[in-house]
């Protein structure tokens, strides 16, 4: 009986995984072709989140894990190629106080992603249909905490390691610059290539966050977080705008997020996210995303994800779709670690409060329980009204030097 129950349990766990990979859709050439721009924008979005405080530190690293070749095959004009979409990322930020209320920081973001015929750790196979790119973003930040002001700027390098000839032509290496200005709850971030602007992100994070010195609860924590992102369509395309509204719904544990695209005036995505603790170390999300395939019900992609501290598992969720070349129809695991800190408090990126283990406050004064007649000085004795005298017992000695007397 026990054996049968265990077998059923294994079967129940394996069934969705097998079904997930059997129904997996291939990633497209188009999605991989614009992968560099997506990576750059994702990194700048994360930097915006981390620079909300402008000080402290941030550490992140992780990689996607999809062990089966059938999970993320590549769809080309010739058919469906077995292989792996991959994404490796790491990021770090640290700011130190150089004088009172003045902080100087350095940040470095790195991501290597694409599609390859082999699963790998460091060295891809680089076959005729591979696309392997990396984006490195670095910069310096300056924060004046009394004015709640942060200024940051740096460079973004987009490097092509290998791109097969089935993809549109692109430059081997592209250099972008970026700048970020935050004053209070408002920030403006721009990305530039030579003299052209590539993107402009205006954010108003009105929600009061305790981790940055705001409120722990109350009406101010229910103010919305708004973002308007403008993208340069280049010579061939039209400029576009994406407006995102994030809203605390219940006690900074349940959030709703919705975004719309302009000028098409279309719904882009919506998400309902639940964090058991406002530090966001653990999260559950349900998402709905418009895929722009224009085929009725298939246009909307419904999915969800479980985000734990060291692992994230998503199925058709908007985050995986946007970060991994529109991969869908399969379970996507990501092994990762991501943590931000300010003044020794720990929290996940974007969280309004720190982890509970760090927010315990001692409300009792120090008190000792030693007997009063043990000959030692006690805390309550030291604060008494009568003046206290100390008597030291010991050996008095005098230091002598040659040719001289006692000093």
């Amino acid at each position: 009986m026990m054996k049968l129950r265990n077998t059923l349990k294994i079967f129940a766990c394996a069934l969705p995984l097998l079904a997930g990979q059997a129904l997996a859709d291939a990633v497209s050439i188009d999605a991989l072709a614009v992968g560099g721009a997506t990576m750059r924008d994702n990194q700048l979005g994360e930097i915006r989140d981390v620079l909300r405080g402008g000080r402290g530190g941030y550490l992140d690293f992780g990689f996607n894990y999809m062990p089966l070749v059938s999970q993320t095959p590549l769809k080309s004009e010739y058919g469906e190629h077995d292989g792996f979409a991959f994404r490796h990322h790491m990021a770090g930020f640290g700011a130190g106080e150089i004088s009172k209320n003045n902080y100087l920081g350095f940040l470095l973001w790195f991501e290597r992603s694409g599609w390859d015929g082999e699963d790998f750790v460091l060295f891809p196979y680089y076959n005729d249909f591979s696309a392997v790119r990396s984006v490195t973003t670095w910069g310096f930040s300056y924060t004046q905490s009394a004015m709640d002001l942060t200024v940051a700027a740096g460079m973004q390098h987009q490097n092509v390691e290998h791109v097969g000839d089935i993809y549109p032509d692109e430059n081997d290496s592209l250099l972008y610059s970026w700048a970020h200005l935050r004053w209070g709850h408002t920030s403006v971030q721009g990305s530039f290539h030579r003299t052209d602007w590539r993107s402009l992100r205006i954010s108003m994070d009105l929600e009061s966050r305790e981790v940055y010195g705001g409120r722990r609860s109350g009406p101010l924590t229910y103010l919305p977080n708004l973002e308007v992102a403008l993208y340069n369509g280049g010579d061939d395309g039209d400029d576009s705008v994406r407006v995102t509204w994030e809203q605390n719904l219940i006690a900074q544990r349940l959030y709703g997020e919705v975004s719309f695209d302009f000028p098409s005036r279309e719904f882009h995505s919506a998400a309902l996210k639940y964090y058991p603790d406002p530090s966001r170390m653990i999260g559950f999300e349900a998402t709905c995303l418009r895929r722009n395939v224009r085929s009725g019900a298939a246009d909307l992609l419904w999915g969800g994800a479980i985000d734990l501290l060291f692992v994230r598992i998503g199925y058709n969720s908007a985050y995986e779709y946007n970060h991994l070349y529109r991969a869908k129809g399969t379970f996507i695991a990501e092994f990762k670690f991501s943590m931000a800190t300010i003044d020794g408090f720990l929290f996940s990126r974007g969280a309004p409060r720190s982890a509970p283990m760090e927010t315990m406050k001692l409300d009792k004064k120090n008190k000792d329980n030693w007997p009063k007649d043990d000959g030692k000085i006690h805390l309550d004795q030291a604060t008494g009204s009568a003046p206290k005298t100390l008597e030291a017992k010991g050996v008095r000695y005098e230091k002598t030097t040659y040719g001289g007397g006692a000093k």
Partner: protein
Amino acid sequence: MIFSSMIRSARRLALLAVFALATFGLTGCLSHWFLDPSTRLQVENRSSSTIVGIDVVSEDGSSIRPWIRDTIAPGERSRVYEEDWVGTFNIRIRVIEPASGKASVEGSYDIEDLEFDGGSEFLVVSDSEKGHRLHLEFK
């Protein structure tokens, strides 16, 4: 005493090795051992036609990528041609068929959704019993 301590050490080492193996397997290192990212294709021609080439054709038929550019006479085997085609593709086999009383006729056969799993593939091409068709079999 020494013997039992050695066994204990060996067990610990084995446990460590299994853990290391699982970790490397997880990161994709070991997938190279059982997944081949390229296909080494060899063709044996058991048909009455002469095979003059094997190509991969795009789904709309507008683009062709050659795989084997070799003439394989009836009863012969080709050399091994390694390419990065692993997956499901449309294949075109170009042949010259013998024609009675006339010059040979050049033609081609399209095979849709042919699956290549990677590694060594030995493809045997023979005449189909249904006539004017080729029979393909991976061996």
